[in-house]
């Protein structure tokens, strides 16, 4: 069954890469992260699966689409300022030359990329050979650190929730979670600074 899920995942990944239309790619990525969520659930990592399903498949799809909408608009707008046209032309010429050059190198660099991917993949696969089995009680993390076992045995009494993920997130690692919340807030702040400011400036310039 895991094999089937993995097969679907690989198929979706290929589809997402090969599709030219960005919108289709976004949609396929949504399905991809959904299959990923299924895989997490299959491995009993419910909270991760939930996050993947709601964030990866839901909000990030919508956000990417919204971003696409912006990009699409930018591309279609003809450059209004005539002064800009001259540097743009030279830019275009330069770009064209760069494209010609890159086309020659394209094939070589593609093979280079393949080589790097295969090499890194092989190394990673080699690395997994040393990894302990999932849930192995004798793995180094469990044997030496004993953190996991502490959580497993004590969290019910010390913290309370039946879901240990919540105990760890909210209690043992409360600082981290606070930091994460701040990070999300910061992301929103960045978008506010970049986009809302730009809109405001455009409006002011037009009014002036």
């Amino acid at each position, binding site marked *: 069954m895991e094999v089937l899920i993995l097969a679907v995942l690989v198929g979706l990944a290929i589809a997402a890469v090969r599709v030219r239309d960005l919108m289709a790619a976004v949609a396929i990525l949504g399905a991809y992260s959904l299959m990923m969520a299924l895989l997490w659930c299959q491995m009993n990592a419910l909270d991760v699966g939930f996050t993947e399903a*709601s964030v990866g498949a839901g909000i990030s799809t919508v*956000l990417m689409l919204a971003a696409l909408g912006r990009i699409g608009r930018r591309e279609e707008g003809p450059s209004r300022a005539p002064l800009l046209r001259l540097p743009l032309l030279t830019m275009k010429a330069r770009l064209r030359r760069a494209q010609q050059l890159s086309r020659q190198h394209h094939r070589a660099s593609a093979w280079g990329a393949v080589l790097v991917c295969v090499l890194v993949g092989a190394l990673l696969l080699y690395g997994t050979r040393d990894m302990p089995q999932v849930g192995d009680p004798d793995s180094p993390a469990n044997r030496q650190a004993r953190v996991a076992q502490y959580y497993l045995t004590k969290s019910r009494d010390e913290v309370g929730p039946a879901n240990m993920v919540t105990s760890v997130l909210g209690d043992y690692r409360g*600082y981290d979670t606070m930091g994460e919340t701040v990070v999300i*807030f910061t992301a929103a702040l960045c978008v506010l600074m970049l986009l809302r400011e730009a809109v405001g400036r455009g*409006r002011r310039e037009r009014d002036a």
Partner: protein
Amino acid sequence: MKETPSLIVRYIARRAVPFIQLYALYVLGHGEDGPGGGFQGGVIFAASFVLLALAYGWGRGRASVPEKVADVIAPAGCLLYAGIGFVSLLIGGAFLQYDAFAGPGADQAARKTAHHFGLIGIELGVMLTVTASMVILFFEMARPAEDEAAEEGATFEQAGHIPEGPRAEESLDG
């Protein structure tokens, strides 16, 4: 211009919104014994506003979460989280030590309840921040260009089935 989402989509989307919101809060409230928590709940809650904006156009969606409200709630969530930490510090516990809320010398059961409320409190903080942040992200990214704003406005007028009720801002920060 044709109304972009059809009548049926708008009808169903609008009816689905309260259920999505309640479900998001359910996810938040039951994060202790099932999957979920503030983050997932917040995302789903934000998704309900996104759905509203998709169905009724940017302007209508924006009206249900005014800019100022989202801007205030995002940091308020962070502050709620940190504030719980500081309050526990003031009472005499460690930073974010929730059982301190039960007061010194409380019995085991009281400490447990205090702990539970503390956890829900911080999860609520996470959720507020995540919801508001996602709403900000979406609405800023999907903001229609100047030339399209009028068009969106037209959709909003045509779709004006929503009677004026109490506005959302009073109730959202509860």
